């Protein structure tokens, strides 16, 4: 029973980490698009 509890804890933590990885990847792709550099961005 105790072992099962620890397995659940580990799975929950892994699920949280996996979800965070996806959210961060999705979010950051909007902020740091490839090729977005000072020289490629026209000024007004």
């Amino acid at each position, binding site marked *: 029973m105790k072992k099962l509890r620890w397995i659940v804890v580990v799975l929950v*933590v892994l699920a949280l980490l996996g979800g965070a*990885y996806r959210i961060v990847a999705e979010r950051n792709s*909007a902020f740091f698009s490839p090729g977005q550099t000072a020289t490629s*961005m*026209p000024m*007004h």
Partner: protein
Amino acid sequence: MMNTAQERHLFARLSFAALALTLVFTSLRHVYRFGWVALAFNLVTVLLLLMLLWYRSTRHSLAVWIYALVGTWVVTGFGLVDGLWAGTLSLYGRYFFPNAGIFPRSAPRPFGFEAAAILASVTSVFALYYGFRFLRTISRPLLLIVPLVVIIAGSAWGISQKGSIAGSDDVIRIGVIVPTHGPAAPLGRAFVRAVELAKDKRATHRRYELVIADSGTSPKETRASIERLVYQNNVKAIVGGISLSGQIVKPYATAERIPHLCVCSVQAIGDGVFNFTNIPLPEDESRRWMEEAQRRGIRKIAILAQTYPSIDGHIRALTKEVTRSDARIVYANRFPASTTDFRTMIDEARRAGPDVYMIEAFNPALDILGKQLSDAGIHNVASIVALAISERKDLFEGAWYTDSSVDDDLRARFEAKYPDTPFVAHMIPYAYDSFNILVDGFESRRDIGDYVRGVTRHTGAAGTIERAAGSGNFRSRPAVWVITNGKAHIAKG
């Protein structure tokens, strides 16, 4: 079945291990904020260990009190408030409920930063549980009550300090982000003053505060400024200028669902959802330019223009517009910003017999070109916007150019209040109108994003600007300006 002493030893060890892990993950999270020096947080682990050893050998109550209070601080501050609330719950809460407005905004950070928060929150929950079990074995009620009160009060205080965006409704902060130092500083300063003028003039029911941020001269500086506006100042709307920074601001506005009105010429910045541009597009400028050229009977055009992204946009749009008319480009020369001798290209252009010399450049090249054209006796000069920024307008006597339409009253008020600041026609009225559009939205008490998305027409200092529903670009018809007696003014008719 364990006796009390055994239980005490076991839970002391487990609570210590959980606290040590919380400190490890917290210190890793803080490495992203403060650098490697943050690993020094782990020295707290040594303190906790010493207290436990002291307590084991002497049973001195001070040792266990220090252990309990330091542990409470670690669990509350780093585990529950920073790791659980500002890290884990904020990340997931804002992802699944973006409109809830409960969780604090958080800047884009690497996965490691967020993962450390999740791990710190999990270990802190274990530290809380094992710590409680350990202190219960000591049979001193205060040793349980005081940490519990500190955890509850500390968490409440910490969460309130992390500040959700929904809470501070009494003053509405509007961010203004433009470069106020570097080469574009004159434009930026004029921009800021235009927004300040709009705020001074406007009578409102709600209170507004402008938060000025310098977007600087590099993407790195712009990122730092916009993150300060969004994540520290909690602005509820943004007025920005200059496409260079507008492109960096855009994803922040989208991620945090903040309306961003940008006085920018890069069409792609406007997405019609949270980001909007409100300056004539290159197509609008070139169309108006060709109308005027046709009216003046111009058929042959020579182009002398600096290579620069926004100028490239104008030249591309103008070239397209020329192909739709009976005019033609008889000469075109694009030069780098560092050019100082234009005489050869002026001679080549003259040999092509143009009706007008269409020039566009930034200073110092602009005024050097103007001087050399004037020396060559050439005065049939025209431009798109560029002549507005000439510091020697006398060199361009009789020249004409397209630029934004400007309300005379705004110009008079601006020049009276800021006599030392040049009136930049292609920024000031749009900055002024952007602020007013946002304030209209806040005053209506509707959701500000919904309100701005619903604005398809606004009449203000820049005349009437219009936007097709769903488009991110407010369009307007530029005016034709002429230079007479060394001063630019809108042509009549």
